């Protein structure tokens, strides 16, 4: 069957099914899910150009597919949907190798299944617990603190059910948009050929004009005796059948901190083991404040320590032995759960990217790429597998969409990887956008950088007497007028919500003068950015004296 006929049949079948089903309106009913209609892409082509594209390209290149995407995560799906909307024939291969603990999941990649989504929901559970405690001082009659406890199984089930509903929505969306979904492990045979190993063991060979690599990454298990057998990772934590109990988190990147943060808020004993620095790559003053905040909430930290061995005890606990890198001493303790969060590796070798000659970074094995291109002209890459690019879902989505526009619609816009805002969802959130203070000084020189900063007191902290000690923000800008802003950093409630709007302002080049000229919304935490006036250089105490005005 020719590819055109194939598409036509699919379309006909879809139309037939919907006609058969009739038009019964939803009326007064409850939905679990509502299918989202396809959004018109930015700069959508006319009907004519669409038809032209779909007929010409297929006959010209002679492959079965215009595009085969390996990886059904945020980046891969975004590119696939965009390409199909531009009249291309696209297949997406998605397959999840079970984690060493046997955890597996559905369509949508890391973010949906074992990343942003479950993480944010567990974080929300933690915030709700905190709010419950606060509620008493606002007059709510609630049980004593000790009696408010978390039902882990209930939380896990609710979150997993939500994830499964998202898996389904994505699946329906692919079907609606006529993206061919293949639940198979893909690997490269040559630069136009993808081998697909299906779940039932059968195999398929797909010939494609373009191939997009979007496999993402998986957690690393360092080579430590007992680690592989006894540790879980972020792949497993959100679907653990039982509450993790006393937990050692190895690694102090954002994943480790977030997990330790919500476990501690849930009332579990949480310890973070830090080899060198907390939140590497982030502003280190802010990282220090986050560490202090987490300590004050009860999270323990083991600084300058590395694990040496892990041994399962008869009672099921894991005995972890670690070494202090400074005094070389060894210590050990027993934990119910050990969570490895020492980094992630890209799945480039799994798809044999190296074997078809794709240039990979020698250490990270990530794809060395400019503008999502690889050194092979018809193979592209997006998302977490890109060397030196932020590993963030919206970045992958944006890059994937723009790439499809450039490939199939004469799009000219390139992905801007600078000034992408992000947030660490630690109990007190840390939102940031742009350069850290140290990077700004390194690039521009100390004399050319001004840093405005302030501690502040959120209004809602007073009544429950929550400590505002780590509620802090700073703006890193050029010293010379009009003081273009290079970085914004915020620690406090709703960090993600606060920083997003400022990211848009930074995108259009906001200056400190313009920020100071902005009128705030009172009383909010975000308005504190508009009230900044103390520079670090001035040496004035950035601690607030009183509450208002």
């Amino acid at each position, binding site marked *: 069957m020719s590819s055109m006929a194939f598409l036509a049949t699919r379309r006909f079948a879809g139309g037939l099914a919907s006609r058969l089903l009739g038009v019964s309106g939803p009326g007064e009913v409850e939905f679990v899910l509502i299918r989202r209609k396809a959004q018109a892409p930015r700069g959508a082509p006319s009907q004519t150009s669409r038809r032209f594209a779909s007929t010409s390209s297929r006959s010209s290149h002679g492959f079965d597919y215009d595009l085969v995407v390996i990886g059904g995560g945020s980046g891969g799906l975004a590119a696939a949907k965009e390409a199909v909307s531009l009249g291309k024939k696209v297949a997406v291969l998605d397959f999840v190798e079970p984690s060493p603990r046997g955890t597996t999941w559905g369509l949508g990649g890391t973010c949906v299944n074992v990343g942003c989504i479950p993480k944010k929901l567990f974080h929300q559970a933690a915030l709700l617990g905190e709010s419950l405690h606060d509620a008493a001082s606002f007059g709510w009659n609630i049980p004593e603190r000790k009696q408010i406890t978390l039902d882990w199984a209930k939380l896990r089930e609710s979150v997993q059910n939500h994830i499964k509903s998202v898996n389904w929505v994505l699946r*329906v969306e692919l079907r609606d948009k006529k993206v061919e979904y293949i639940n198979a492990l893909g690997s490269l045979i040559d630069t136009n050929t993808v081998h697909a190993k299906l779940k039932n063991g059968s195999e398929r060979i797909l010939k494609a004009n373009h191939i997009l690599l979007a496999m993402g990454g998986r957690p690393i298990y360092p080579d430590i005796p007992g680690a592989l057998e006894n540790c879980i990772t972020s792949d497993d934590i959100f679907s653990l059948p039982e509450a993790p*109990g006393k937990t050692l988190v190895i690694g102090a990147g954002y994943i480790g901190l977030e997990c330790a943060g919500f476990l501690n808020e849930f009332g579990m004993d949480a310890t973070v083991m830090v080899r060198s620095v907390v939140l590497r790559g982030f502003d280190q003053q802010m990282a220090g404040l986050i560490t202090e905040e987490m300590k004050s909430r009860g999270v323990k930290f083991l600084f300058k320590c590395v694990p040496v061995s892990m041994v399962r005890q008869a009672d099921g606990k894991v005995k972890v032995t670690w070494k202090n890198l400074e005094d070389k001493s060894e210590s050990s303790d027993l934990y119910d759960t050990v969570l490895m969060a020492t980094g992630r590796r890209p799945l480039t070798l799994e798809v044999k990217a190296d074997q078809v000659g794709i240039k990979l970074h020698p250490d990270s094995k990530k794809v060395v790429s400019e503008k999502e291109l690889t050194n092979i002209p018809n193979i592209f890459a997006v998302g977490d597998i890109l060397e030196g690019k932020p590993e963030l879902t919206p970045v992958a989505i944006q890059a994937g969409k723009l790439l499809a526009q450039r490939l199939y619609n004469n799009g000219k816009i390139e992905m801007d990887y600078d000034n992408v805002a992000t947030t660490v969802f630690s109990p007190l959130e840390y939102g940031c956008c742009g350069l850290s203070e140290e990077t700004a000084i390194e690039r521009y020189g100390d004399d050319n950088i001004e840093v405005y900063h302030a501690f502040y007191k959120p209004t809602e902290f007073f009544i429950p007497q929550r400590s505002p000690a780590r509620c802090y923000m700073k703006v890193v800008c050029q010293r010379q007028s009009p003081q273009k802003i290079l970085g914004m950093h915020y620690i406090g409630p709703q960090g993600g919500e606060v920083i997003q709007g400022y990211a848009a302002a930074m995108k259009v080049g906001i200056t400190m003068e313009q920020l100071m000229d902005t009128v705030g919304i009172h009383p909010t935490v975000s308005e504190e950015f508009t009230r900044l006036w103390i520079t670090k250089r001035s040496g004035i105490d950035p601690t607030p004296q009183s509450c208002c005005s």
Partner: protein
Amino acid sequence: MFATKFLRSSIFSAAIRESSDICSILPKRFASTAPQIDVFVVQDSKDFDERVKNSKVPVIVDFFATWCNPCRMLTPRIESVIAERKGEVVLAKVDIDEHTELALDYDIGSVPVLIAMKNGKVEDKLIGLQDTDKLRKFVDKVVKSK
């Protein structure tokens, strides 16, 4: 640790709740001596063809998901309505995660969805959680239609 103990016991209670939910969606009449099996779970597409498309009596197909709360609420309601018809109509339950292609073929975008089928043809469709009266009318319509 107190917290851990509490969490463990609550897992246990959740498991009990879960199993009672599952009971309610299992075919209830397999073990009974009643001659007519009026609720069954579709096993595969062949099973769907045989027992739904080729059914002598009208079939209500309940497309559901295990993760969908409204589905859980709908199940006992539609089952009781089907039971009232004493074999004039049967209920076929399709887990959309187990039988994804089947669900997609019938354009299931949201769940729960009830589809009324007669002689292998779709006669009507009802999306979302419904009250018993509405379900009764929906079932009546397909039973009475020629």
